[in-house]
């Protein structure tokens, strides 16, 4: 199965009530497959044809407020068009789940993978999970509903799966039985909100006396979900045998230098680490599985004793001091009073291939930094001509 077909299959097993989406490459085949499931009676859901992503997410938000289990998915410009409603969904504490097949943003028009679409959504208050394989895109989606609908959480979740690389590449996937999915992610965790017999107002006007408290409440809730996400991941491991954690370290115990990355690029880095380890190089890597809430305690714990770290960002943040992931990690280090020389690599933008050779070069640079203890220029654009 491809990552997209795996996601669609998970949605069928999760018995979603409403799917509203607008086609955009490379997410389209998820929705195509779901519409097929609905049309041939395999999934009893309302498949809503909407005129834009703005309407897709608005429909999901509204349906979720009636207690329905909803799904949507998008990419790139589509995600940007959803932007304003994303804030509303999280502040209203509605359990909307969405798959994002990460794609670059225009201009120039480019349909390949990078994280340029998801990084502008950092502050929308959603839980953001990252998959690095199609298998994980499937697993994370099943976990997402369990997390999102937990009465302690009540927050929307995005599952990011790199476009084209995961969305359209076929790999063998271990699927759960329908009954296993149903018992893992039962339908009735989330209480119905809108009820004609008990009228209430959702999305009311919030005076200055209330605004701060409301936003603080949802922001605090997001910070607190990290425990629950780990708990759900552990339980999922018990039924599936696959456990990812919020951060996934590889060969970090005795490593001198560590490279941190997010998404499908992590697989290439892991393979490179494996190869170079055989040659006796003391290197390691961490794959970030969760971006919001940011697992800074877990990261700092893993990297606090190394000689140099590198952070791979698959998106630019023009005008910022560095890339978005790098900024999070270095802030966490600074606040922990740990001073490690670090480098920020920008790689794989707009689908640019990141090879094992590229990763090897990153490690060469990092080892040089580890040896001298100084960084000349902390930003490095991999493959820039």
């Amino acid at each position, binding site marked *: 199965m491809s990552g997209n077909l795996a996601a669609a299959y998970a949605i069928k097993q999760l018995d979603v009530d409403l799917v509203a989406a607008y086609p955009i490459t490379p997410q389209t085949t998820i929705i195509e497959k779901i519409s097929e499931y609905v049309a041939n009676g395999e999934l009893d859901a309302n498949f809503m044809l909407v005129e834009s992503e703005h309407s897709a997410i608005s429909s999901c938000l509204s349906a979720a407020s009636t207690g329905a289990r909803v799904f949507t998915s998008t990419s790139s410009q589509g995600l940007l068009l959803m932007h304003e409603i994303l804030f509303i969904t999280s*502040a209203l504490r509605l359990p909307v789940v969405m798959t994002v097949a990460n794609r670059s943003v225009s201009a120039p028009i480019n349909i390949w993978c990078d994280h340029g679409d998801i990084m502008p959504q950092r502050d929308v208050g959603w839980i953001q999970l990252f998959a690095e394989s199609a298998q994980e895109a499937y697993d994370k989606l099943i976990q997402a509903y369990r997390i999102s609908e937990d009465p302690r959480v009540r927050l929307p979740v995005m599952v990011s799966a790199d476009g084209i690389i995961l969305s359209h590449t076929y790999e063998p996937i271990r699927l759960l039985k329908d009954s296993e999915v149903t018992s893992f992610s039962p339908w009735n965790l989330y209480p119905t909100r809108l009820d004609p017999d008990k*009228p209430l*107002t*959702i999305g009311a006007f919030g005076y200055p006396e*209330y605004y701060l*408290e409301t936003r603080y*409440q949802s922001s605090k809730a997001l910070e607190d979900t990290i425990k629950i996400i780990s708990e759900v991941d552990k339980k999922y491991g018990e039924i599936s045998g696959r456990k990812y954690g919020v951060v996934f370290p590889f060969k970090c115990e005795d490593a001198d230098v560590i490279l941190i990355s997010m998404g499908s690029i992590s697989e290439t880095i892991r393979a490179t680490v494996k190869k170079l380890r055989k040659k006796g190089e003391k290197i390691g890597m961490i794959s970030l599985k969760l971006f919001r809430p940011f697992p800074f305690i877990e990261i700092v714990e893993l990297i606090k004793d190394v000689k140099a770290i590198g952070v791979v960002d698959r998106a630019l943040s023009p005008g910022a001091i560095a890339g978005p992931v790098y900024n999070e990690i270095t802030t966490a280090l600074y606040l922990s009073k740990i001073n490690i020389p670090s480098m920020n690599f920008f790689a794989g933008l707009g689908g640019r291939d990141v090879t094992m050779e590229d990763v090897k070069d990153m490690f060469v640079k990092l080892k040089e930094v580890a040896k001298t203890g100084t960084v000349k220029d902390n930003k490095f654009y991999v493959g820039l001509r």
Partner: protein
Amino acid sequence: MIMKSELPSWNEMEEGFITRTLTEEINETGSWRTFKPVIDHSRCTKCRLCIIYCPEPCIDLEVTSSDEKVTIDYNFCKGCGICAEECPVTCINMVEE
């Protein structure tokens, strides 16, 4: 004026800013009005379009045993003028207050 001590703290408020006070019933928005819609009942065909279009919704059809009549609740009408715009027989006039 609301006293500071009467306001709830963040964890006393219902999750997702749900309000049960139904403020739209308490806050009489009629005072916002500059122009007041006035219905010429002699020309009104009781088509009900104004009732459907009223965003407040404060236009209603009053039905008695002998008659039915379109009425506007001026306690809530903000004077937006949508009813006058949509009326197919232009029998609603916006009169400056």
